[in-house]
């Protein structure tokens, strides 16, 4: 297969059918074809995590996934975490804790943290650091980011 390849992907709960070039990454297609620019392009070598999205239930660096590999799959981007215009508990915690400085890494941080909290309801500080080890923050807001994830986990537990 070369040229444009037809694929079907469910993005943030909505089924989409479109054509992609074989050498375009999931990141490029999300941003340039679907205008979902919350997912950021940064290092392009899988080290910074700014392009983190959930693919078929697991987080990936979308710069290291060809769009055609996602054919038939389900993708959730940071835009898919808020519902009806309301921020998720985790997103609110990032604001409350002042975890956002320049903000560029935050979509990736939040998608990775959301994944962590799906796997581990009450993560320790060590588990939060390990869960977010693939997400770099040049503003070095790691303390606040860790606090935000812990606060969101505590709030979730309190709400149950």
């Amino acid at each position: 297969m070369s040229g444009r390849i037809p694929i079907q992907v469910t993005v943030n709960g909505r089924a989409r059918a479109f054509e992609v070039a074989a050498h375009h990454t999931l990141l490029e297609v999300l941003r340039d074809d679907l205008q979902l620019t919350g997912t950021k392009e940064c290092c392009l070598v899988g080290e910074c995590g700014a392009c983190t999205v959930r693919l078929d239930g697991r987080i990936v660096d979308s710069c290291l996934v060809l769009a055609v590999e996602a054919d038939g799959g389900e993708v959730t981007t940071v835009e898919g975490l808020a519902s009806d215009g309301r921020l998720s508990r985790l997103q609110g915690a990032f604001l409350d804790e002042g975890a956002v400085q320049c903000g560029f890494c935050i979509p990736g941080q939040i998608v990775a943290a959301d994944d962590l909290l799906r796997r581990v309801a009450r993560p320790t500080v060590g588990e939060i650091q390990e869960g977010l080890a693939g997400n770099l923050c040049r503003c070095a807001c790691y303390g606040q980011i860790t606090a935000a994830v812990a606060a969101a986990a505590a709030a979730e537990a309190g709400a149950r």
Partner: protein
Amino acid sequence: MHAFSYERPATLARAVALLEAHGPEARVLAGGTDLIIRLRDGSLAPTVVVDLKRIAELEPGIREADGRLVIGATTVMTDIAADARIRRRFEALAEAAAVVGSVQIRNRATLGGNICNASPAADTAPALLVHGAVVVIAGPSGSRRIPIDGWFVRSGVTTLGRGELVTAIELPLPAAPMGSVHLRRTRRRGHDLASVTLCCGVDASGVTRLAYGSVGPRPVLAVDATGVLADRDAAPDARTGLLERMLAEATPSARSMRASPDYRLAMLRVLARRGVDIATARLAAAEGRR
């Protein structure tokens, strides 16, 4: 990224036919965590990329068969690190898989890809050497099996031939308990490549297997069958001399930016001693549970 054609074969036979027809012009895509970086930076420019993830015979998974644990080549690090059988019987491999890259990388990076990429720093390589892994290969003339120690040649080069691909990695289930451990040094905790990586396995008969990487062009396996290294009552000089001979194949490059040769060689000795101690203690604990 330059353009290439994308193939998504549904059968192993079709994948082998594609790889045989295109030879070095084709690259195999499994997790993509190494390949896509190299497609983007132009250091690889295949005309065809063959994606293995829709091949029925290559479904990821871990199963027991005929006294072996068979890990499908497309099984990702996350699932290897979480597998109860691997954690219990092949602890070094579970620990190695758990520190590859980040969560995002481990969700994508496959065991087959890690050995085919053949980085000297590959975290799983020393573990597979210690556990006596066998690489299962499919190719134009059928399938073959080779011990992992005959697999790695040098950085990026293996004994895989034209038209061949790895379908599984097999671990023989040890008859007697074995204690094993994976250790490494990195510049920072979390997502980093190893400056030194080492695994040690000690079995109930006293045989110690040491394997180390990131200190030369290929990972190295050294075996002490005398029982001296695992014997805490052995003369310290005897153990030191033995250890020196086992680590003699370490030849770290001065060109690598991650750590100096002196640092790597010094840390290799530290990790080797620590590895023997931990593996011996784990063996004792495993025997105590029997």
